[in-house]
């Protein structure tokens, strides 16, 4: 078994488990404030592993609950972009012709777009909320997967088993999703795994800018917003949430790269 995949899966599993079991993992209520002078901006200690924030809330507990937000944004956004990418890439590669040209022009536009600006715009104008963040990240990140699926379809649609299905009178829809798609999924799994990390990064940046999760709830990115305000004093507010993002994204990327090596025999030989 590939070392990178194992490392990735173990970390992701631990993170997901603690997010699901947040009430048992966190020792404090993540929203409970303590405004007394000695409870605010407390250094990391045995009582508060990662210290407390400016409102006396336990940073560790907030991060455990924040993992719920960050992880679910990652998964749901990628789920949306997978759906769009597979559908558009599939019909684009299968039918070719004008459908293909139209979809590929849109893909090119998405590639040249400063996407982050579009995301910021849409979210501000629709109203910042975590659901909007998931949807908008999903809707703006399908171009890569679309291209990938299209390329696979272009080579697969000429193969004998597709011709055989056509001759038998199988509907186009069924050929695309039942016959070709399962054979095209290898690179898609890799790309989807890497995209989860990407989506988590975008969510954290948006929450950091105040466009993601809304107070009093927290995601890793929004804890960093407070970290920036108290950066000259409370280093723990900045250090730990960032590390959590780093480790999580790293795990998804390692898992994706590991999958790529396993699925692509050429890469294995080269090594």
């Amino acid at each position, binding site marked *: 078994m590939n070392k990178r995949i194992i490392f990735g899966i173990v970390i992701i599993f631990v993170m997901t488990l603690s997010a699901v079991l947040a009430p048992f993992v966190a020792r404090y209520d993540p929203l409970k404030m303590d405004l007394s002078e000695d409870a605010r901006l407390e250094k990391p200690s045995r009582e508060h592993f990662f210290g407390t924030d400016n409102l006396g809330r336990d940073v560790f507990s907030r991060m455990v609950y924040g993992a719920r937000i960050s992880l679910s944004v990652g998964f749901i956004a990628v789920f949306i972009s997978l759906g769009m990418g597979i559908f558009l890439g599939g019909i684009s590669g299968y039918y070719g012709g004008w459908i293909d040209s139209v979809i590929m*022009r*849109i893909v*090119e*536009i998405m*590639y*040249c*777009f*400063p*996407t*982050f*600006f*579009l995301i*910021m*715009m*849409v979210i*501000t*104008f*629709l*109203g910042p909320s975590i659901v909007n963040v998931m949807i908008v990240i999903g809707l703006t990140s399908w171009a890569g997967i679309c291209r990938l699926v299209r390329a696979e379809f272009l080579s697969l649609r000429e193969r004998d088993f597709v011709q055989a299905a056509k001759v038998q009178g199988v509907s186009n829809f069924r050929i695309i999703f039942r016959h070709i798609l399962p054979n095209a999924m290898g690179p898609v799994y890799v790309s989807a795994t890497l995209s989860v*990390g990407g989506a988590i*990064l975008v969510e*954290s*940046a948006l929450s*950091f*800018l105040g466009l993601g999760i809304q107070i009093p709830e927290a995601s890793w*990115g929004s804890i*960093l917003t407070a*970290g*920036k305000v108290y*950066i*000259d004093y409370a*280093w723990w507010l*900045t*250090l730990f*949430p*960032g590390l959590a*993002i*780093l*480790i999580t*994204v*790293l795990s998804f*990327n*390692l898992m994706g*790269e590991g999958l790529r090596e396993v699925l692509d025999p050429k890469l294995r030989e*080269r090594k």
Partner: protein
Amino acid sequence: MKRYIAKRLLLIIPMLIGISFIMFTVMHLAPGDTASIKYGMNPEVSGSARANFDKMYDLDKPVLVQYGLWVKRLISLDFGSSLIDDQAVMAKITSRLPATLLLQIISLFIIFLIAVPIGVISAVKRNSFFDRIMTIFVFIGYATPSFWLALLLILFFGFKLGWLPISGMSPWYTAYLDSFDRTKDLIAHLVLPVVATAFGSLAALSRYSRSSVIEVMNENYVLTARAKGLSSSRIVTAHILKNALLSIITIMGLSLPALISGSFIFETIFAWPGMGRLGYEAIMNYDYPVVMGVGVIATFLTLIGIFLSDIAYAFVDPRIRVGGEK
């Protein structure tokens, strides 16, 4: 070559139209109308006055018509004026653009100067200690939230060590300095934003250089050169690097959207007086004309960058040029 350039240049127009149309539609999906943003709760501005306002700026027409009118004005570079301070959008952008370009171009150079050698050395000495360390660096670089890195830089170099300024570009006191000291001060202000901007792309580009060098190393002409008994340093510089640079140039062009996207975050964190921060503030203030202006200019810059890298690519690779002239 001329025809190739002309063809590429013409491609920019439909892209710009497509992208600006998406942004235009997105803005019109937004709840709240321009009149109430401009005049807010002001009771002196009555309903009929607001209707007149809408009429004056064609806000009562369908989105498609409004978009047409907007494009018509755009041809004479008229983006309208800001809803917040009534300044012309174009003037606002041109006053902010130099700061952004300065930051981006320096970052691009630094990325190129560091990433390419890293990639080449890793590829030539594959699986060496250096290559392994760089692989780890690349993985961490990909996974680091760049704004967090910016915060760490501020924390460490700004507060703990106190070596570098953490915000702004040219503070008031620079007016009293001679040009040498002023440049020195500017460089000091540039260091942290440049490091933060460059870091993410550094990982991507060094990885990419590595794989394109490896690809070239497996080509037959490299084998021939080795068989001829050329020294390996000559093979690397004359045969491998030249060919590997081709694909690296293209990827530089494609990394521009990420750099521009980054500018919205970094300029906000470092209080850099550039276009990215202008765009962020405009979005926060629902200042539609400025948002559209910044969006279009940012997209235009990206497209120009991709165009230039295409041209550079065609310039060094005759195959593309000939193909384009057919």
